């Protein structure tokens, strides 16, 4: 008996990181992912290194490009897609993103608020004298 793992036909789901298709198709998948990632990375570095863009728009552009590149990595390298065979992985990812947004957004919001309400440091030193 061989120890090959045959993918059963009509399997309900796939593990994350698994991809179907011939070797050529899979190579093409990683190649497309690499190309898109290089394009997005190069754009990010270009946006920072030139001064042709309106300054306040740069942080937004960098963050949008970063999120797009993470999406490319998730789809082309991790193979977490929205297909019906991938529901558990996507649900876990959605929960992870929710927690990350709560932690980062909540920290920034609360700390900015505290900072805003705090007496400036030099005045605080004066009061303690």
């Amino acid at each position, binding site marked *: 008996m061989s120890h090959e793992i045959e993918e059963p036909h009509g399997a309900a789901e796939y593990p*994350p990181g698994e991809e179907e298709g011939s070797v050529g198709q899979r190579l093409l998948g990683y190649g497309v992912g690499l190309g898109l990632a290089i394009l997005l990375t190069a754009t990010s570095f270009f946006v920072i290194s030139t001064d042709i863009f309106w300054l306040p728009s740069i*942080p937004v552009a960098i963050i949008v490009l970063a999120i797009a590149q993470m999406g490319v990595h998730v789809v082309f*390298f991790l193979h977490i897609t929205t297909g019906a065979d991938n529901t558990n992985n996507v649900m*876990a990812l959605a929960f992870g993103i929710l927690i990350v947004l709560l932690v980062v957004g909540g*920290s*920034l919001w609360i*700390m900015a608020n505290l900072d805003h309400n705090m007496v400036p440091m030099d005045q605080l030193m004066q009061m303690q004298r």
Partner: protein
Amino acid sequence: MTAATLAHDELYQKRIRTGFGFWLFILSDMVIFSCLFAAHAVLATRTAGGPSGAELFDLTNVAFETAFLLASSFTCGLASIAAAERNRFWFQIAMAVTCVLGLAFLALEIREFAGMIERGAGPTRSAFLSSFYALVGCHGVHVFAGILWLLTMMAQVQAKGFRPDIQRRNLCFALFWHALDIIWVAIFSIVYLLGVAL
């Protein structure tokens, strides 16, 4: 259904469970990183009179680190294809290239840290630098652990071949390595590029 098909089905189900479990671990690791990111975002401008990101960061160095890590993610994908095809030769080649690229990334990062500490910008200098070393250093430690795991997988495939349990470990390793690259995307965008722009 024959006994053999049942055994295959069982192994396949186990592979799905292992992958899903490891995916949950990666997501929890991302939550840990999000806490470090939140701390860095809050403290990024608190330089206590010390050097700021714009004075310290060398974007050429960061571009090379990014290129090495992205290329290693690609070769790790090639290793996954070779593992699925049970081609030991190309698996070992792709893993070796991944290892070299990972080591090149670590070497650049260690050189950068050493250069900064030499200029008096160590983790004790300011809150900004403490959060910087905690975040980027934590990623570097992950890459180091990933390289140790990578070498283990090369040895295991060489000694034991593509057994189902080894293949499950390969799957987990690939997930781990790709996840490290995703975290690096956030680091070079938020810490370095925005650190220079601010």
